[in-house]
């Protein structure tokens, strides 16, 4: 186990001597130029077709406290990689983490030949210390993306940065300023320690559990019978309705463009200007709810791909997702960009202001939400046992239940029948629900408009066949208590082999979330088009699935090879929620 805290001073000095802190020279903080506070945006910087990126130990300073990060070119986040659609690009990545097995960079959401995708053990052997790997590919898309290390926990300690691609034919919308807004989470603890803590005690970082007083509060609100029934139902399953994030503000400082809330990253504007904010969730485990009190946000792109503009006041951004929004502040005042963690334990914060040093009011954190049994289709458990467990009720074998017409396909997902007692599977959702019209837990009740996945309607060309050739179901499974995470009840190392996708087939993939947590599911190397009822389904590289949810995506695997498919919560991935997809 390598500790990021005790890297050798020699390595550090070596890296410094190699002149890797180019961006840092301009600033007292080890930050890249694009992330400086009070900067004026990245427009009109020009794209390049060649970048040299070096992953190395570099100093970081958060709220005055120093630590060592795995920065890229000496900074956290890393430099802006700015490319142009249609270009042939060369990205040289060097590993200066001398005590690691390997480093790597994965270009998140970018369609590349499989050897260029950057997952050690799937696409290449990783970059050994001291080595440089040359990534070379033709850029076939435009939009806002990001890149990050795919080696162990290097992403948690800072190896990530924004990647934006200028479209060949110009953007489908106008704007005056352009800011990447990279959200992330930083811990002064070694991620190996975090991983050990959550493995040994799943609630190690959760200090928002329900207490005896919450019980009394619920009794007075909902009555004794319902409250006891609800507690018994969760207790019977050994699940917690307030298990919303594995890692919380107990160890995290939430960052916006590398700035803590008190450091307050600020973007400058002139009143009346239209500002493009490229929200990129580069966190290891934090799903954020983003709003800018006082401003409407017009969502124009999701995961880098254009969508029909939709005006909202808040959106949830799962780990690894990106949203481009346009805002137009007309008044001469400061606005707070407020990104609350899903579990409400903390927030990242920045400011849009006409002048440096101005601050808008910072909202209070909302109360931590509680999952409802109804959310996972188990509302019946409160009153007299579980609905559907009673064999008498089943009557003539199969009770006919209405097929929700919003779940596509003639048949819906394949039912999941794990071996009884499989330690990977703590719960099976028998009647997963269509929830794409639901903004998510804790959202939608504030009197303002919150984005849902149903709002996303693609405005991009639809190059793929509309005829579905094949259907497949992948079940998202877990045993939180043991910190085991898996697909189809098998951890990565327990699968008999890669999932098989056929080259250029049109595949409908059902994802069923049998766990009590949101999982941002990411598929490398090809788009997932979310079947949300839109005639032009939106393109996604990462989809935040809700507990008890079934959703389906349409996939056309355009590149042969092996691709990673995983939950983008870093510790879930390392605990086994990872699989290889083979396109052949």
């Amino acid at each position, binding site marked *: 186990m390598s500790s990021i805290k005790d890297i050798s001073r020699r390595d550090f000095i070596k890296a410094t001597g190699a002149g890797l802190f180019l961006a840092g020279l301009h600033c007292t903080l080890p930050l890249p130029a694009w992330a400086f506070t009070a900067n004026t945006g990245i427009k009109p910087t020009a794209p390049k077709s060649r970048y040299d990126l070096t992953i190395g130990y570099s100093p970081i300073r958060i709220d005055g406290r120093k630590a060592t990060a795995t920065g890229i070119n000496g900074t956290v986040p890393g430099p802006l990689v700015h490319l142009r659609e249609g270009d042939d690009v060369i990205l040289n990545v060097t590993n200066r983490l001398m005590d690691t097995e390997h480093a790597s960079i994965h270009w998140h959401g970018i369609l590349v030949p499989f050897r260029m995708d950057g997952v050690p053990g799937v696409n290449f052997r990783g970059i050994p210390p001291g080595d440089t790997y040359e990534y070379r590919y033709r850029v076939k898309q435009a939009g806002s993306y990001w890149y990050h290390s795919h080696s162990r926990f290097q992403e948690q300690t800072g190896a990530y940065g924004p990647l934006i691609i200028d479209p060949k034919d110009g953007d489908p919308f106008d704007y005056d300023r352009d800011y990447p807004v990279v959200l992330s989470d930083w811990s002064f603890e070694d991620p190996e320690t975090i991983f050990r803590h959550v493995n040994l005690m799943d609630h190690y970082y959760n200090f928002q559990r329900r207490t*005896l007083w919450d019980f009394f509060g619920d009794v007075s609100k909902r009555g004794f019978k319902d409250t006891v029934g609800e507690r018994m139902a969760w207790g019977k399953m050994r699940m917690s309705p307030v298990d919303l994030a594995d890692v919380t503000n107990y160890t995290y400082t939430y960052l916006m463009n590398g700035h803590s809330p008190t450091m307050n990253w600020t973007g400058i504007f002139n009143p009346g200007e239209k500002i493009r904010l490229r929200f990129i969730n580069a966190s290891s485990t934090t799903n954020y709810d983003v709003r800018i009190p006082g401003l409407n946000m017009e969502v124009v792109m999701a995961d880098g791909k254009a969508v029909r503009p939709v005006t909202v006041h808040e959106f949830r951004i799962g780990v690894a997702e990106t949203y481009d929004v346009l805002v137009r502040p007309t008044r001469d005042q400061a606005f707070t960009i407020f990104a609350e963690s899903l579990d409400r334990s903390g927030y990242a914060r920045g400011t849009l202001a006409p002048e440096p040093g101005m601050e808008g009011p910072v909202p209070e954190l909302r109360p931590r939400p509680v999952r409802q049994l109804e959310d996972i289709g188990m509302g019946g458990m409160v009153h007299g046992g579980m609905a559907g467990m009673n064999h008498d009720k089943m009557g003539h074998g199969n009770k006919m239940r209405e097929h929700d017409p919003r779940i596509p396909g003639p048949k819906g997902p394949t039912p999941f029948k794990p071996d009884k007692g499989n330690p990977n599977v703590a719960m099976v959702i028998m009647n997963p629900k269509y929830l794409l019209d639901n903004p998510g837990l804790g959202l939608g009740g504030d009197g303002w408009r919150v984005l849902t996945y149903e709002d996303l309607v693609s405005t991009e060309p639809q190059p793929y066949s509309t005829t*579905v050739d094949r259907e497949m179901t992948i079940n998202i499974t877990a045993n939180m208590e043991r910190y085991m995470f898996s697909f189809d009840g098998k951890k990565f190392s327990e699968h008999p*082999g890669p999932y098989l996708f056929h080259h250029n087939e049109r595949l409908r993939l059902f994802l069923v979330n049998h766990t009590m947590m949101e999982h941002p599911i990411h598929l490398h190397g090809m788009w997932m088009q979310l079947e949300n009822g839109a005639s032009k389904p939106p393109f996604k590289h990462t989809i935040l699935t809700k507990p008890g949810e079934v959703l389906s995506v349409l996939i056309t695997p355009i590149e042969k090879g092996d691709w990673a498919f995983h939950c983008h919560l870093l510790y879930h991935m390392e605990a086994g929620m990872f699989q290889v997809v083979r396109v052949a």
Partner: protein
Amino acid sequence: MKTWLMILFLTLLPATVLAADKSFTNPEERDFSSHYHEGDTEPGKGERDQKYAGDAQAAAQENFGIQPIHDNEIFAVFRGDRLEYQTKEGEDILLWDVQAWVGEDYNKLWFKSEGAWLTHEEKFEGAEVELLYSRNIATFWDLQLGIRHDFRPEPSRTFAALGVQGLAPYWFEVETTGYISEDGDVSANLEAEYDLLLSQRLILQPRFQTHIAIQEVEEYGVGQGINDIVLGLRLRYEIRREFAPYVGLSWSRKLGETADLAEAEGQDIDAFSFVIGIKVWF
């Protein structure tokens, strides 16, 4: 007859704990909605749908000699669940109840030790260690198999041990183990704990423990049947998750033949004590 029934009960004890734990993952017990299907054919082709690549490896998949995810990591932990001072009238006790394990998700090597030091008499009341192989056998349960050795009371004894440990429905931490001594005496131990949160760090823990024996073993003061019950209530404050001092109460009562044996020896059959201690893990 009674003896045999009890032997049967004790042998099946681990199984009964598991049986009482109704699974939420058994689809046979649940009602599938009508639109589910077996999904083993490709639409329109009638061929078996192939979910996994045909040239799959048997072991964890790796390309280029590297395994991308190491999802069966070995961890090791030491848990001092009860390290405490018990004040009884005239007889104070230093008690330890510790466990340590090393292993991955499925297989662990488990070490347990429990015992008490009588501070006035300056001798051990009991001192036992267990070494167990632990295997994950159900969603929330581990089966444990190994040996136990009692250094005290003397003369020391060795037992074969078989038990289950895990999380019962409604969040009860349960540990139940059956033992056969080198002399063929059969006994069992059952422990259950529950955490009641008064605040995020202030936690009240009721605890229940009982010992059961099939045969009377007079030499050790063990009667046939239920030997004793121990009830505890401990209030701890988690300064950190790993470090929590506590205060509490403990009440124990010897029962049946065991109580008779104790009375014959002139011992008390029940005891009430205040406890102060720490719960740690690292």
